[in-house]
């Protein structure tokens, strides 16, 4: 077991409560997001996360360190969530892209069509955003953050989960593909859809206010 991971495992085995509290704090967010992709309600996802942590506590002595501790924990989570999803008859088609996700992400009406002078070019350039949008701590950034949180709620489940794991929680594309069992190409389609909707949400908010 390499460096930190070994120390963490040793701390957990030794009953170091602070170490356990810290990983519960740090990892439960992505775990909950991920679990939601396999079960039908948020409450059910919470139970999956709790069940996973209990399984981790009971199994930590058997952990052999062939993968990182986090990978091991997340694998238990996905297995737990999947079997619960089966019981709940919940099936999100992670491995295929639905028809409505294959077309363009952005409204085609924003671009000139074949009969116009510059087919495929913007009818009008996107309006400029005030600089404060990206200035952390500004009033506008706060409003935009709340707006984005509500855009996230309206996204189709798969898009929301991929966007949350990637852009909100900062996981790599490799990690997300492995955890969800999807190809890079599928992940990119879902991410692209979701990012396009997120940008459009900000644009609508900024232009409307």
């Amino acid at each position, binding site marked *: 077991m390499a460096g930190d991971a070994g120390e963490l495992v040793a701390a957990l085995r030794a009953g170091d409560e602070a170490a356990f509290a810290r990983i519960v704090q740090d990892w439960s967010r992505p775990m909950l997001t991920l679990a939601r992709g396999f079960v039908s309600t948020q409450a059910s996802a919470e139970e999956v996360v709790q069940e996973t942590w209990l399984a981790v506590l009971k199994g930590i002595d058997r952990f052999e360190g062939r993968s990182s501790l986090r990978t091991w924990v997340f694998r238990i989570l996905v297995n737990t969530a999947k079997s619960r999803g089966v019981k709940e008859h919940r099936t999100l088609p992670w491995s295929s892209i639905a028809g409505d996700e294959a077309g363009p992400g952005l409204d085609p009406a924003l671009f000139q069509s074949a009969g116009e002078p510059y087919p495929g070019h913007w009818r009008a350039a996107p309006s400029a955003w005030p600089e404060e949008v*990206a200035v952390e701590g500004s009033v506008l950034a706060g409003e935009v953050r709340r707006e984005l949180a509500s855009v996230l709620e309206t996204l189709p489940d798969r898009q929301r989960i991929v966007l949350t794991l990637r852009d909100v929680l900062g996981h790599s594309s490799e990690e997300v593909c492995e955890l969800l069992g999807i190809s890079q190409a599928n992940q990119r389609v879902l991410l692209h859809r979701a990012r396009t909707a997120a940008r459009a949400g900000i644009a609508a908010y900024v232009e409307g206010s």
Partner: protein
Amino acid sequence: MADLPCRQVVEVITSYLEGSLGWRERRRFEKHLRGCDACSRYLEQMRATLDVLGTVPVDTLSPEAQSTLLEAFRDLRH
């Protein structure tokens, strides 16, 4: 090679940001951006969107659930 229209530029933007465009496509994309203020602005707004996304709060386990787990830890590991 035909110029990339704006409509396609906005659809490959994620591939561009993910570094998954081939070098030829990447060059076409960047060439288009140099000549197109509208798409440059779009890309800039996408980057700003990613910055704000990184600050959106995400649900975690309730404090009650967390303390239940800590109790279980005490029971099991002591």
